[in-house]
């Protein structure tokens, strides 16, 4: 009983501190429900570094109308459940009007309805799922949706003059969604999809699917695959002597695939979202990174996180420190904004566009396709 009393008193003190610091409001506070522990913590650390860099730059330049910004980090433990808890805590205890959401589309989408219901703006810098911002008008993304990728793959086929292609795809929300966008765009561009072959995740034998897809020896075959399935498929296709130009998305662009499938994927091509590393914005970012962290190891999606902070700061400046103000201002400040990752104009689904590059595998290395 005494232990319990002690605990309650302790918690009371703790809460008192958090509330008293909350009432001070010397700074503009922004919530960040990041993965700082758990399975994807390795990403979370990188995102945090990128966000910290942006915050430092903004504050050094005088903050927002003289007030500094401060990030309230909340660990989302890399699970959907704790993402919800973290976002809820940021909203109810820290009372922030805007939150940088969790990485991993599924985790983000688990927490998005909480932010939407509380009318708090939540932004994603890494989510690719087409339906990421579906929860409502308060949910934004500064990372391109996979929907755009479907068009990118279609454009690539047209560019390489493949008029008739079969398409294989992983039979889940991601694969099916991407496939539909591809088929729609490819047909619009005058192409013909000869066959659609869904396949299950995690199998060991894809020979049947491969035979069916490459029936009639198509010159090119689109395959929306992950690393694991791709490794098995390309290997089995190679063994069976299937000769077709494989065209993939960005999900297969991984050194692990090259390691697993070896020479079976030589010459494979695919699309991925790119932004120029030659712009003055990018060069400035890289220089600033090197100055702060002493290396040039910019983490994956670090640039998107960096842009997200600047956009948010601009939105607070323009619309005021309220969620409604930020929500409305984001559209205005995003319009024509050239960030490190390119144009950040928000579309009607509160997402951004992107340019797509083409990758290929040459001598067991992933390189840009020319």
């Amino acid at each position, binding site marked *: 009983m005494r232990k319990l009393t002690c605990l309650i008193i302790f918690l009371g003190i703790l809460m008192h501190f958090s509330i008293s610091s909350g009432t001070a409001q010397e700074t503009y506070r922004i919530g960040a429900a990041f993965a700082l522990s758990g399975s994807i913590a390795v990403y979370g650390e990188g995102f945090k570094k990128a966000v910290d860099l942006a915050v430092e730059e903004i504050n050094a330049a005088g903050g927002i109308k003289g007030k500094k910004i401060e990030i309230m980090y909340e660990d989302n433990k890399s699970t959907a459940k704790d993402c919800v808890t973290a976002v809820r805590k940021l909203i109810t205890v820290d009372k922030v009007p805007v939150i940088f959401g969790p990485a991993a589309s599924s985790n983000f989408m688990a927490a998005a309805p909480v932010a939407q219901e509380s009318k708090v703006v939540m932004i994603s810098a890494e989510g690719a799922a087409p339906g990421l911002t579906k929860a409502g008008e308060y949910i934004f993304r500064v990372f391109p949706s996979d929907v755009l990728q479907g068009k990118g793959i279609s454009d690539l086929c047209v560019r390489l003059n493949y008029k008739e292609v079969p398409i294989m795809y992983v*039979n889940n929300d991601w694969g099916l969604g991407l496939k539909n966008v591809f088929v729609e765009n490819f047909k619009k561009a005058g192409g013909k999809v000869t066959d*659609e*072959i*869904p*396949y*299950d995740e*995690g*199998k*060991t*034998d894809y*020979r*049947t*699917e491969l*035979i*069916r897809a490459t*029936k009639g*020896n198509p010159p090119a075959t689109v395959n929306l695959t992950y*690393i*694991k399935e791709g*490794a*098995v498929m390309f*290997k*089995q296709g*190679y*063994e*069976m*002597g*299937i000769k077709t130009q494989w065209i993939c998305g960005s999900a297969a662009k991984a050194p*692990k695939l090259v390691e*697993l*499938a*070896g*020479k*079976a994927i030589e010459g494979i091509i695919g699309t991925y979202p790119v932004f120029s590393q030659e712009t003055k914005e990018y060069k400035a970012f890289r220089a600033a990174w090197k100055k702060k962290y002493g290396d040039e190891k910019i983490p994956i999606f670090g640039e998107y996180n960096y842009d997200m902070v600047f956009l948010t700061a601009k939105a607070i400046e323009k619309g005021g420190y309220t969620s409604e103000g930020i929500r409305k201002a984001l559209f205005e400040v995003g319009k024509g904004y050239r960030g490190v990752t390119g144009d950040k104009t928000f579309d009607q689904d509160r997402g951004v566009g992107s340019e797509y590059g083409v990758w290929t595998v040459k001598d067991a290395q992933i390189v840009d396709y020319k």
Partner: protein
Amino acid sequence: MDFVLQSVLNGILAGCIYALFAMGLTLIYGVLNFVNFAHGELIMWGAYFLYLLMEKPLSLPISLALPPALFLTILLGIGIDQFVFKPLRRANRLTLLIAALGLSFFLRNGAQFFWGAEIRTYGFEIKRGMRFLGVSITFNQIAIILTSILCILFLYLLFHRSRIGKSMRAVSDHLELARVVGIDTKRTIRIAWIISALLAGVGGILLALDTNLQPGMGLINLVKAFAATLLGGVGNFWGAFWGGILIGLAENLGVLVISPGYKDAIAFGIMVLMLLIRPATLLGSEESS
């Protein structure tokens, strides 16, 4: 490439893998009268044991690593029986089923603990298959077909031409009665586990050579193997063999007509049909136990 012939070959290949697994399943079922749902994990561990020996620090060549890998799989099989199923020898079938399912999770997560969920390979170079009559086949695939044929012949001879085989059949018919007439039932059961684990190890390694290693590799194929077992009549080796081949062929040829998204539905459809039409294959043995 001849698509129909290549599909037939692919069907036979998949079928041989199912058959190898089905034979191990049916053996344990025949002797102990329960479905060992952890058989898929024996398969997976067999493949991973070989991986363990071929990777650093040992870095053995495959010819040297193979015997100890199979030996370790057999030890695991015996261990499973000793620590899980032996204490439950007189338990009812439901208990055994749940124990096997639990064990399956335990072993799968165990492998995940040591090696992670990512996929791995033995690191052999990928080769184009040899070509016959417009069909390509790799050396490894020939090995799969030959090994399954050898295994079924070995089992046939063991069961019908040797004392051990006869005692296994006796134990299968009636455990108590076999004991009464002086058959060493403990030894017989142990031998059944050894053979079952050996079949699992061989099958797992062949499967991993043909594809990749991953903790779920046994489980995905086990369900098909189970369908093959039912199709052939539980406890019947030739049945398991032909059941496996038939399911492999049905899947591979069926997909030429219907969408590959429904590939698994073919195997399960056959399984459900068998349960409806010939439930005696399952229930019959229950009555005798």
